[in-house]
């Protein structure tokens, strides 16, 4: 009974932009850019993370990275390093930090921050070319960051 209640709560939490996830401006990065604590407290879903990495309107990570495990999705870019095996040589905390805001790990990198809502120059409204209206949403939600990190952790063989 107790267990079911907890599961139900976790589902509710994952499904909404819920209040107790860490807000983009409140994420704590360590001196190397890693983020120790989960942004939501709920575990990431690697299968959803996989889709987010391919989806052009979401992570679109393969625009810049080659990932053998995502070979079924066409056209992998070369702007960033191949991510094969990255879950083996990076910790979950490092990966969370890199996906949330890679500038904290790699100074000046071209990789965009996926969990950031301030400090932009001329932020736009999606891909319309028009100015952003109202509050800026991060490209990925807190739970989506956790999902992507969970998928990256499955990349163990290079």
């Amino acid at each position, binding site marked *: 009974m107790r267990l079911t209640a907890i599961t139900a709560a976790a589902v509710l939490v994952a499904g909404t932009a819920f209040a107790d996830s860490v807000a983009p401006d409140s994420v704590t990065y360590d001196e190397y850019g890693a983020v120790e604590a989960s942004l939501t407290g709920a575990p990431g879903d690697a299968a959803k993370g996989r889709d987010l990495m391919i989806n*052009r309107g979401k992570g*679109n990570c*393969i*625009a*810049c990275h080659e990932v053998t495990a995502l070979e079924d999705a*066409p*056209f*992998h*870019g*070369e*702007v960033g390093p191949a991510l094969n095996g990255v879950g083996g040589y990076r910790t979950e905390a490092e990966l969370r930090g890199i996906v949330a805001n890679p500038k904290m790990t790699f100074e000046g990198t*071209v990789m*965009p*921050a996926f969990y950031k809502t301030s400090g*932009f*120059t*001329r*932020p*736009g*409204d*999606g*891909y*319309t*070319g*028009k*100015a*952003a209206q109202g509050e*800026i949403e991060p*490209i990925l939600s807190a739970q989506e960051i956790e999902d992507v990190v969970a998928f990256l952790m499955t990349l163990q063989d290079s």
Partner: protein
Amino acid sequence: AAFAGGADDDTLTINGELEMTTKAPAPEHLDGIFDEVISGWHFRSDETQQLETDDFDNPGMIFVDQAMDEWNTAEGSEGKSCADCHGDPAESMAMVAATYPKFNEEAGELRTIQMQVNDCRVNRMGADAWKYDSGNAVSMEALITSVGRGTPVQVAIDGPAAEYWEKGKELYYTRTGILDLSCASCHEQNYGNYIRADHLSQGQVNGFPTYRLKNAKLNGIHSRFKGCVRDTRAETYSTGSPEFVALELYVKSRGNGLSVEGPAVRN
């Protein structure tokens, strides 16, 4: 053909006689950045490249023909055509594409080709200005670039042009949008690399206006800039804006030494 790792080694000759400089030593102001500047032609597939080697195969030349009709047609309250004042464009316009954007002393402003054409239309012909990057305007620009093909780009960046150039340079290196990318992120740091399915070039403008297979029309420089800025998830500037005029001068100066190539064919 274009593969990962950069530009190919093909050479471009148009109509079997016009040899184009598609790779050139980088202009001095790019010292420490590039050794060589490279036309976007080198980053396209063999099939796309081929279309530019013959004016009968280059779909952009259809628009040049249309503009030639326009050139000879009187318009506006003065009843004059471009030809009335400028004769044969092959002679009067041969150096225009290589040297624009250019500072106009009398008007005290930097002018793109389209701005200059509109100045003639409004002030000398008594005709309407064409909307920036509209069909008519881009076709006329293509006529003017087509007669300059093969001439090395040589825009002036000193004297009164310097302040525009500085402003354009600043825009080139400013990271914009939610993706926080500058022109340099893609076209300086990553040319030769694929970004998803696109093979990144140096983002040169010597080939403009470009006929793109993707939208089957001629595309203006500012429209391309707008698309690239939009893709950083940013608020773009408008075509014809002072920002894009300055950026055009700066980007064009990065191709000083490359042949004028417009209308080029791109994917």
